[in-house]
């Protein structure tokens, strides 16, 4: 027996009954949100593309993006506490917007597009672990291999294998190591910050030149980088906040890492109280802003010790050379700032340890990323949209073989295309765009929720949060629609993002056509079997 009270007055009596669990802790939620908006695996990687919007300021775009994404956090917190324990976008959209649309959005955003995230993660693993590790261990040839077509494909296969193993093992063991990965990753990050904070720029330049010569045989690498970037015609912006317009154009790039604070969010409290909305919001919001704080700190210490111009120049020169520019990069592998920070200590063991510790940001999240696919596949199989077999789990080892095949086999194919076609690799932001479309429909769902599901909304703790009598959750939904709409417009109209070319559009179109085809075929096949899939979410009349 339990009692909830305001002051001394009881307001709710609970009797002993199954499932009366408390919501998950804010700390857990915060860790998940910080890992999903991953500063190292996704953030630093995406920062390296600044030169595609040459006048854009990273710091400004990070802050604008974070403020805007905070509204998405409010909107999702509203959905989570209104329809909790349910499984996210798939359930919200099928219930509020309809079965077909819900399936298409969930299948594309949480399943098919993960086939592309596999090689993207593979590439990140290559540039943030394998390449710097081999280079640091004194094998620049080996490091270079991981940047070749074959090398990238091998690392993609490793990533897919790691994801498959982690999904097969289940979350029980993995969740335990996730927290440790996060904490150790934070320690590694702190080491990088301390190194940069307490080293002077001149110290960095001499260390950089020394280690670059030792590892790659490059003379005067710092100056060579600056000169090389200048030859490509790139001019780095001076560290600061302006100009706003160009920085706004970086926002669609920042979505690659900041759009995911809601990734792992569910709520398990069955008796939903007023505090639940605050708790869910606080967890995701804190996680997002931890990432933002780390981003700001990173950019500040980089500006202080590397020099913003050098940091941007090294990235600009690398990508220019990578995509066939005539000026070679001074450092022949991706300019990983962690590796550069490690070079401040002239000790190979330390440098290797730092790279390994920072790779925990990758390993702490990669399993959860791909787990979402298996969940959508299971839900679709239980809804009879996919064959029952898709949700089968092996008796002995509890491995979801068929869903793993549906998730990983196409990922292998796409990894091959990604690795061997330089053109396809530029479609990286397709992976963000497709999920943004799925989010867009959830944002629409949150806006129409108070009108479409009045009772549900009235009973939701989210409905009582108002400003000047206006409920904040649907308004946050509208702002989120603005955020996603702006990004979609930019992605689809501006060539700088590598998204709006024919092949990219065809690729994404195929995903949507495939999802629609699966749903239509399922409806036809099931109808022939006497099963009406239209019944799944049809509401029984109350009166």
């Amino acid at each position, binding site marked *: 027996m339990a009692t909830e009270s305001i002051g001394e007055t009881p307001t709710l009596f609970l009797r002993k009954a199954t499932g009366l669990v408390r919501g998950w802790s804010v700390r857990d939620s915060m860790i998940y949100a910080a890992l999903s908006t991953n500063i190292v695996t996704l953030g630093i990687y995406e920062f390296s593309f600044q030169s595609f919007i040459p006048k854009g300021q990273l710091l400004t775009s990070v802050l604008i993006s974070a403020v805007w994404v905070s509204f998405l956090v409010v909107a999702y917190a509203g959905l989570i506490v209104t329809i909790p324990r349910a499984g996210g976008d798939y359930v919200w959209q099928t219930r509020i917007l309809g079965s077909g649309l819900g399936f298409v959005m969930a299948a594309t955003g949480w399943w098919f597009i993960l086939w592309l995230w596999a090689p993207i993660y593979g590439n990140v693993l290559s540039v943030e672990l394998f390449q710097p590790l081999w280079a640091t261990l004194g094998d620049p040839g080996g490091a270079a291999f991981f940047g070749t077509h074959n090398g990238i494909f091998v690392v993609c296969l490793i990533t897919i294998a790691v994801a498959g193993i982690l999904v097969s093992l289940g979350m029980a063991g993995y969740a335990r190591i996730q927290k440790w990965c996060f904490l150790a990753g934070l320690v590694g990050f702190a080491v990088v910050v301390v190194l940069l904070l307490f080293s002077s720029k001149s110290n960095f330049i001499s260390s950089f030149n020394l280690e670059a010569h030792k590892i790659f045989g490059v003379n005067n690498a710092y100056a060579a980088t600056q000169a090389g970037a200048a030859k490509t015609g790139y001019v780095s912006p001076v560290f600061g906040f302006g100009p706003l317009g160009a920085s706004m154009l970086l926002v669609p790039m920042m979505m690659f890492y900041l759009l995911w604070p809601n990734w792992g969010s569910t709520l398990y409290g069955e008796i939903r109280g007023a505090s639940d909305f605050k708790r869910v919001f606080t967890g995701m919001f804190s996680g997002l802003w931890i990432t933002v704080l780390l981003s700001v700190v990173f950019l500040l210490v980089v500006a202080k010790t590397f020099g913003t111009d050098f940091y941007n120049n090294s990235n600009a020169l690398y990508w220019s050379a990578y995509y066939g520019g005539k000026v070679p990069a001074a450092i022949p592998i991706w300019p990983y700032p962690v590796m550069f920070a490690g070079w401040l200590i002239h000790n190979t063991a330390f440098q290797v340890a730092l790279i390994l510790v920072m790779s925990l940001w990758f390993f702490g999240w990669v399993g959860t990323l791909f787990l979402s696919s298996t969940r959508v596949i299971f839900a679709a199989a239980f809804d009879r949209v996919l064959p029952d077999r898709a949700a089968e789990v092996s008796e002995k080892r509890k491995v979801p073989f068929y869903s793993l095949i549906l998730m990983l086999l196409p990922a292998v194919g796409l990894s091959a295309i990604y690795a061997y076609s330089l053109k396809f690799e530029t479609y990286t932001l397709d992976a963000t765009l497709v999920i943004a479309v799925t989010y867009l429909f959830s944002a629409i769902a949150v806006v129409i929720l108070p009108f479409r599901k009045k009772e549900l909304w009235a009973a939701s703790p989210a409905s009582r949060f108002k400003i000047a009598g206006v409920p904040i959750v649907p308004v946050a939904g509208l702002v989120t629609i603005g955020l996603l709409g702006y990004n979609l417009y930019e992605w689809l109209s501006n060539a700088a993002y590598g998204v709006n070319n024919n092949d990219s559009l065809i690729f994404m179109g195929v995903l949507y056509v495939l999802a629609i085809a699966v749903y239509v075929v399922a409806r036809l096949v099931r109808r022939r079997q006497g099963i009406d899939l239209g019944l799944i979410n049809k*509401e029984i009349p109350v009166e």
Partner: protein
Amino acid sequence: MKIFFATDIHGSEICWRKFLNSAAFYKADLVVLGGDVTGKAMVPITAYNGYWQVTLRGETQRLDSKAELDEVMNRIRNSGFYPAIVSQDELAHLGENEGAVDQRFSEEMISSLDRWLDMADGKLRGGDIPCILNGGNDDIFEIDNIIESSPCVSFGEGKLLDLDGFSLVSMGWTNPTPWDTYREAPEEELAAKIEAVAGLVPDMGRAIFNFHAPPYGTGLDEAPALDENLRPMHGGAVMKPVGSTAVRDAILRHQPLLSVHGHIHESRGIKKMKRTLAINPGSVYGDGVLQGAVIDLDVKKAKVSRYLLVNG
């Protein structure tokens, strides 16, 4: 023969109303509610001179008219809670006396169930549409006699009910939970209870097990792993099987045609266990959505010809 099976509505009046309409909506010949009928929480509404006061989800409201009171009481009932109108003195007494809360809970559960069964009489055409109800581990034992005495609803616990040649046996008990609820028993005891009802079945090829606890380790029994404070561990991402091994062993041993379960709300799913189709439609009663399973049985061939999990 078409069956609609739902479970774990936990006092949600909107779900009960939907359940009563489900036969007509899904064109079912028979409706079964698998247990955990009663609610988990009670909301006190304090009566003052000329108005009432209630706190819902942290927001205190003053209700000045009977219409407002009725509207709030309906909202509370639809969430699966019991509205309890109390005086200031009664509220203070309830706040200090656990026994008094238990007593009031029982009264509210029983009067609510009485009202629900009255509604059923009209909706189920006085018993023309067979309707089977069962207790679950969260249900107090006092509800058994009330359901038993209803003219239009059959109480399933421990009985064999013949349904057009199919045999349905029911058992609302579960293996132990962290909440120490009413109908819990150790696995050995559960196995004995199962054998007692399974022994009544003449032909397992035409048997339907309606056991509240899902079979262990089948994916129909996955609940969030909890810490000692009953808080989900690792952000709720880690699930663990919490079903009954006795139920699992009984299904594998007897191989009934169909086995329907509840208890673990978040574990909506289907599992083929050799010849048996095992289903847990799950529950989201708090959202006012009645999750269920529509199951077509082929009377001649004694097989499950179709099934669909629905969110009605």
